[in-house]
């Protein structure tokens, strides 16, 4: 093989990696500059000013915002995984009347943009007293997550050997105990992947929390970041620190469950 062709792959990959990392480096370098430093690009740090993180955490309130996002995720992720599992189980293993139509009805939601639901959601939830509450936001997010989750769990349960389900039924197991005792213990990877995807999506939601929660005390972290950016005269190093604080949980989850996440996105996309 000629030299240029041998070098092509490493060169392309290096370019790709540099392109991904350079913006991150700008962020990191901005976060450790002295407070009050104006916008700069990549620059050798003037010492290590970690106090920006303290400022962002307490003074700018990102500690509280993180907690708020955490509470939403704690409400959304387990409930979404549970409901999607139940629905996917029914669609994959039972002959539900109208099952195909129900599945098609759910799949429509995959292409529905948040823009088309958010306007009435705001006015209707306000009428119900659910705006400015994390419950309201959580209900909306769980609902929005149902199409993908049902689809994901349905295709997972469809790959399980039907003999397993038949055998359980012949032993007199109810459909409920078949699910909990036999199928779910063998479904750890699929369920974990769904949970990881749900967590990341829930954490990253922006338009819905921006509109449904106006109360600064209950905002989620990305929405808080949005407001913080819009403030007049925002301190750049604390904004950089705040950004790092907000992305830390998703990056941590991603690094830990990286294979699950990538496989989830790829399989989820391709089976559709």
């Amino acid at each position, binding site marked *: 093989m000629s030299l240029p062709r041998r070098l092509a792959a490493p060169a392309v990959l290096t370019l*790709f990696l540099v*392109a991904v990392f350079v913006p991150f480096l700008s962020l990191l370098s901005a976060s450790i500059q002295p407070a009050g430093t104006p916008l700069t690009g990549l620059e050798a740090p003037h010492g290590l000013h970690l106090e920006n993180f303290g400022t962002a955490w307490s003074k700018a309130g990102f500690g509280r915002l993180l907690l708020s996002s955490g509470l939403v995720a704690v409400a959304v992720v387990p409930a979404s995984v549970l409901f999607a599992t*139940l629905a996917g189980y029914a669609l994959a293993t039972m002959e539900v009347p109208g099952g195909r139509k129900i599945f098609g009805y759910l799949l429509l939601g995959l292409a529905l943009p948040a*823009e088309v639901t958010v306007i009435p959601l705001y006015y209707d939830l306000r009428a119900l007293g659910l705006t400015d509450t994390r419950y309201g936001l959580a209900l909306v997010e769980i*609902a929005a997550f149902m199409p993908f989750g049902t689809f994901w769990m349905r295709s997972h349960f469809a790959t399980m050997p039907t003999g397993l389900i038949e055998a359980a039924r012949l032993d007199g197991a109810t459909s409920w105990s078949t699910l909990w005792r036999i199928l779910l213990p063998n479904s750890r990877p699929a369920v974990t992947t769904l949970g990881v995807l749900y967590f990341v999506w829930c954490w990253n939601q922006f338009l819905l929390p921006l509109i449904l929660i106006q109360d600064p005390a209950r905002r989620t972290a990305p929405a808080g970041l949005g407001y913080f950016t819009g403030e007049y005269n925002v301190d750049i190093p604390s904004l950089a620190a705040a*950004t790092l604080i907000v992305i830390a949980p998703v990056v941590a989850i991603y690094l830990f469950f990286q294979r699950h996440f990538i496989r989830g996105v*790829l399989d989820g*996309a391709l089976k559709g």
Partner: protein
Amino acid sequence: MLDIAPAPVTAPPRARQRRRRRRRWSGLLYLAPALLLYTLFTVLPALHTAYLSFFNWDGVTLPSFAGLGNYRSVVADPELRAAAEHAGTLILFFSVLPIALGLVCAAIVARRRRRGLAVIRAVVFLPQVLPLVAVGIIWRWVYAEQGTVNQVLQAVGLGRWAQAWLGSFDWALVAVGVVGTWVVSGLCMVLFLSGTQRIDGEIYEASRVDGAGPVREFLSITVPLLRPEIAVALSITVIAALSSFDLVYITTGGGPGTTTVVPGILIYRLAFGGGAVGLASALAVVLTLVIFAVVLVITRLSRERP
């Protein structure tokens, strides 16, 4: 599918039938929570938006019936048309460019390198995980007057091109688009890489024997065989381009002037501050219909035999 197993001889047919029927209906109970929430908090609001689109409403006083007036405005209003054009331009940066980049990279990398592939996958996928708000903030620095882009330009002697990119009437939309390319390209590349692993190596061997060069090989083997992956990447990224909001909101807010206004931004502005809930709803309905149409076309095309 579940009836393949022969019925146990001892079970009287009546009892078996009753049990099967109960099982069927109980399936609906399993579906109930998902269907209920999805209907209440996704489908009904979408239908409610469609209903609101036929009214003039400022969100406070009583709405008045507008017929198709709001839809006429969607077609005629220059700002709304500009938003549609910008969304179209974004497709170039969110879909066409990342897919082209992803295909070329996947083709170059796929059959030459195995070592370190997992690490590379993990890194190029990272932008996909970040909240777009954070991505937007990061890129505001990259594009700033003293930012990385201008630093690089100055370093290579193109300093006269240096400018505040997101504030430029000519460049802001392109700059936002490039951020989209940055976010999506890794996803496309990984998607195509996993697709190339499906392709039988012997096909490549055969084409080599026939004397096909790398370009020919790419165009007549890799691209056609990756059709399903390309269709998927296209659907996902086109939806992202057409319904973009977070990124534009954070980087430019639609400005300077109206040069980066997209439908999502207009819907937000008109409904929550502009006092034109009906018009915002009509725009949201049109946006949704366009997305459905595009996804339908892509799915149809990808299923046709080449």
